[in-house]
């Protein structure tokens, strides 16, 4: 395997809990929400890694921290051999061109007062890749490329004239105009109507082929992950609990949590299924992470060891790692 494009090592992001004036005065120790608590993975060129987890598991924070839209607390982010964790903002700018992000909410990720054509052209101007006219031309081409035609008509529209699916195309166009090598797609389709989702996924897939684009695809929907990812990583409370090739993980989930997730997903193809694993309760607050295995309070198999000792990622089959004392395989 060649050198990975992106390498993340032991990434952590702790947010201090905003203390009230009283707590500050009482000198209570600061508390942290451990949104990302030691995450490591690699993504090869052209590879899609799906990061899956329930809301609040830290997957979104992880995505943003990797792009340094949020400053990491600890850990290393190595992009194409360069550690970008500590780069100054100025030094980071060239990397911004090569790494992009697509957000979940297409309504909020475009400035309401900017024509969508200008929004797409702006990255070119920011990185001095083109003059105004040229940028416009390129933006027009990109509009056509993402299927917003007639493109010159779309160029002058404002976001509120567009539907959610169309906006997401604009967002993708804006990210892709820089021909990035890596993109974080943060729940890129979860706010899009079902009928439209597939086409957005197709669009991303086409760029992947064209640019040999690596993707970190963040989603709560395993079915979507299955559709596009080469590998799947499952996150729970700030940690990756299982990571491996898509087929392998879905067919043979090693972590009880992964298994439960898979079983909870509704399906047309397998309507009346037997439930093997039932987990109860909800994800605890990331400010109070349970000791030991952080999944133990909800785990049907938890024992004393799980309550005290934190499991490490171990390889259960080729390239398939799990952090569990009692893996299912």
């Amino acid at each position, binding site marked *: 395997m060649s050198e990975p494009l992106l390498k993340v090592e032991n990434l952590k992001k702790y947010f201090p809990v905003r203390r009230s004036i009283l707590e500050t005065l009482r000198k209570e120790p600061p508390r942290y929400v451990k949104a990302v608590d030691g995450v490591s993975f690699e993504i090869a060129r052209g590879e899609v890694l799906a990061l899956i987890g329930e809301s609040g598991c830290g997957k979104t924070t992880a995505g*943003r921290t990797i*792009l340094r*839209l949020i400053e990491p607390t600890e850990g290393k982010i190595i992009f194409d051999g360069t550690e970008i964790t500590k780069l100054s903002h100025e030094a*980071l*700018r060239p990397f*911004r*061109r090569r790494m*992009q*992000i697509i*957000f979940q*909410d297409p*309504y*909020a*990720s*475009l*400035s*309401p*007062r*900017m024509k969508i054509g200008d929004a797409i052209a*702006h*990255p070119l101007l*920011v*990185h001095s890749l083109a003059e105004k006219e040229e940028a416009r031309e390129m933006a027009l081409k990109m509009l056509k490329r993402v299927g917003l035609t007639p493109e010159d008509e779309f160029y002058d529209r404002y976001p*509120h004239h567009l539907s959610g699916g169309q906006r997401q195309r604009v*967002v993708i166009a*804006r*990210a892709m105009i*820089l021909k990035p090598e890596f993109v974080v797609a943060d729940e890129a389709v979860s706010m899009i109507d079902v009928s439209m989702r597939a086409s957005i996924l197709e669009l991303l897939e086409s760029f992947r082929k064209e640019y040999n684009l690596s993707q970190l695809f963040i989603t709560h929907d395993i079915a979507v992950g299955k559709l596009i990812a080469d590998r799947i990583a499952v996150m729970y409370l700030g940690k990756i609990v299982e990571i491996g090739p898509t087929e392998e993980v879905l067919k043979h989930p090693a972590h009880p949590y992964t298994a439960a997730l898979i079983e909870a997903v509704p399906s047309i193809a397998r309507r009346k299924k037997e439930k093997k694993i039932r987990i109860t309760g909800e994800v605890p607050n990331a400010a109070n992470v349970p000791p030991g295995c952080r999944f133990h309070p909800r785990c049907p198999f938890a024992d004393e060891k799980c309550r005290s000792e934190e499991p490490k990622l171990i390889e259960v089959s080729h390239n398939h790692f799990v952090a569990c004392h009692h893996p299912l395989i």
Partner: protein
Amino acid sequence: MEIAGKIAEFLFGKKPGRGMMLFGLTIVLIVLIMAIFAPWIAPYDPTQSSDDVFAPPSGEHLMGTNRLGQDMFSRIVWGSRIVLYVVFIATLISMAIGIPLGLVSGYYGGKTDRALSVVMDSIYAFPALILAIVIAVVLGPSPLNTAIAISFVYVPTYFRMVRGQTLSLKGQLFVEAAHAIGAKNREIMFKYILPNLAPTILVVFTLSVADAILTEAGLSFLGLSVTPPTPDWGYDLRVGQPFLLDGYWWLVFFPGVMIMLLAMAFALIGEALNERVSLGTR
């Protein structure tokens, strides 16, 4: 042409509040015309006294004459200049200070922001008219000084509005997206945040103009705005007040109505704009 059409569409298009908008704009336009063409519109010299004192409204004196025999209509016409001058200078000054300060303060945050916010909040929370009175008295009566006194109390209005909006816009995804494409802070502030503030600024502008008109009138009512014989609505109202008891209602009625009509016109425009703005996005 196209832009003009769009502006016209924005202002007069069949949208909610069209009636309010039209009414407001008409009045503002009338007052503006009065101010610009005062020498041609006013039939008399507004400062010239005559022996024809306390004449009731008639064909000769549309709004009657005052105790010195000055033509009230001419004074109202010329008075529009002072009101507009004071109010617009005041609003411009406060915008010129409040908006950039709020933008930078909100965007960068930090200790300066906190200190500035405390100062602005303190002034903001204090009764504006009282502060304006103190400042106006100290600076002495002149339209420019009045404008300064008024602008002083509106700086925090703009500052707080812009700062608050900047703070919330700063957390929006599209700003994060701008970071992600590598835009610089200056670009983000002026290309992404400021344009999104514009509609709110416009609304606050019209509302603060409406408010400033009343503040100006309040200051001149207390005799702090202009020196006679300069025609000024608030001042004329003040000097006309004692004569209300003698039945010379026109001395009080017309200046008062003009003040409120103009303020109302701006408030109506602001209200209509507000509806358009909240309708325009999303």
